[in-house]
């Protein structure tokens, strides 16, 4: 390869394009995790920054002081364990509910005429363009003892006394499902809209009833969309803070609130870091699953 060819092919240019997003994310997304890991081994201190150093170099002696106390507390203090389990449970149930509501919606929208389809999809996505925070806030007013829901039910004579929904885990479920529904519908829709209707026609032609065709053709083919949607809902839901904080009560334990509490209330950065690391580890497998799916989606037909 002569020099002229080298210059023309711009290997430098190509690497610059890769470098910009890569370096940014490496520096501000990946490396910070390492720093969190480091601080999770530290100890709370009245200092700025409020944690003890891990590595000390005193009198020509290099000491590595790894404080495992934070992690020990996480595994022994029942409150933490319960919070982790509770987070997973709440996230899982919410994901399931999102799937039960979102799949039919995505399915029917995907079957519409192309002209109406786009509007219908936009209508699903539009609410998420309005502030997430404000939408959660809306539910506070609805679920309150004096809120719309209770007043409507009492007015209709369905119940006598107001239901206590606000500040209970149930409210958190409702909030999560409400806010994350579009995230379930979108990947499902993207998958279902690519379904070749002729496959179903072939099935009907061969004698399958609609529900049979659905179970044995549509459902399996939409598996990738289901996985993506579930991951997109469940993973961030595990670490949710705003929804359980605003809608849930003191018994709505979620690990996001624990982290927040450790950091903002206790000012215990090392403890917060440990909570974060364990959360990351818990979510590692689902994140990898999602990552593999998403990469394939983005690369498309590129080999």
């Amino acid at each position, binding site marked *: 390869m002569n020099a002229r060819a080298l210059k023309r092919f711009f290997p430098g240019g190509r690497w610059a394009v*890769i470098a910009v997003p890569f370096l940014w994310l490496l520096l501000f997304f990946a490396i910070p995790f390492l720093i*969190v890991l480091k601080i999770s081994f530290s100890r709370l201190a009245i200092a700025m920054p409020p944690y003890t150093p891990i590595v000390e170099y005193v009198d020509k002696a290099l000491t590595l002081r790894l404080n495992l106390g934070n992690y020990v507390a996480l595994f022994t203090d029942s409150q933490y364990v319960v919070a982790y389990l509770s987070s997973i449970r709440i996230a899982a149930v919410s994901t399931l509910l999102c799937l039960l509501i979102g799949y039919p919606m995505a399915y029917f929208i995907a079957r519409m005429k192309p002209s109406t389809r786009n509007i219908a999809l936009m209508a699903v996505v539009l609410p998420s363009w309005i502030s997430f925070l404000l939408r959660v806030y809306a539910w506070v007013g*609805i679920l*309150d003892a004096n809120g719309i829901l209770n007043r409507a039910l009492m007015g209709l004579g369905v119940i006598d006394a107001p239901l206590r929904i606000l500040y209970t885990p149930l409210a958190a479920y409702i909030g999560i499902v409400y806010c994350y529904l579009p995230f379930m519908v979108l990947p499902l829709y993207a998958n279902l809209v690519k379904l070749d209707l002729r496959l179903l026609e072939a099935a009907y032609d061969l004698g399958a009833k609609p529900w049979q065709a659905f179970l044995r053709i549509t459902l399996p083919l939409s598996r990738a969309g289901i996985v993506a949607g579930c991951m997109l809902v469940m993973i*961030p839901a595990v*670490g949710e803070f705003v929804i359980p904080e605003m809608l849930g009560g003191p018994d709505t334990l979620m690990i*996001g609130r624990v982290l927040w509490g450790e950091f903002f209330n206790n000012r215990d950065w090392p403890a917060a870091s440990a909570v974060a690391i364990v959360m990351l580890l818990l979510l590692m497998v689902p994140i990898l699953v999602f*990552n593999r799916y998403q990469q394939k989606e983005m690369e498309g037909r590129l080999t």
Partner: protein
Amino acid sequence: MNPTFGQRLLRWTVLALGYAFLYLPIVLLIVYSFNASRLATVWAGFSTKWYGELLRDRQILEAAWVSLRIAFWTATAATVIGTLGAMVMTRFHRFPGKTMFGALITAPLVMPEVIIGLSILLMLVSVGAAMGIPSKGMVAIWIAHVTLTVSFVTVVVSSRLQELDKSLEEAAMDLGANRLKVFFLITLPIIAPALVSGWLLAFTLSLDDVVIASFVAGPDSTTLPIKVFSSVRLGVSPKINALATLMIMAVSIAAIVGWWLMYREDRRRQLDMQLALQENG
């Protein structure tokens, strides 16, 4: 196969319920912003006084201005970086480290915000001084928001890039344009709508974020969501309803305008194509 009446009924019931679920809270937000009473749950007559109070609240207005500025710069930076990322994912064939690159690009899409917020703060506290970045403040929020939103832009833009016929770019190269020119003269103009979508998405995400901003905001960089959050923790406030209504209106107008523009463009294309077919050249 035409859907039976039963199937159609099912379809419309599901969709009606679904949309009602999605939109009812929003409608209620708007309705109660006009409630004369402070109690957002008891209707006491129509009033616009909360809007007046909202517009007189200096703190909220300042926070809004901070948020808008951060959102603007976040969206702009995220669009640039995200588009580069999308080009790499869809146009660059295998290179060493592409899997790691892909992982870096997709992970932020699902990472819980508390983790992102905490990690960036700790990072800035540890090494920010060396880089000349204060650990709290507008720059810190901007960095954190860009990190959060880049992946979303990449997803939106890659989707469009995939649909783009590769032979268009090849034709441009064949006619004498090098890769850089191809990108600016051919690729970019064609995918421009996706870039706009990505920009808007990043803008919205940044404008709306409370968790991450709470970690890295400084005393003079309170964002609107932080203000709203602290306000609603104390209970329901119709002023917030008024704010919500204004935002809903802004988004709706933008959505309608956007949709109408696309519709008009589409119709024009259809007519053009029909015209061409009729002429049958």
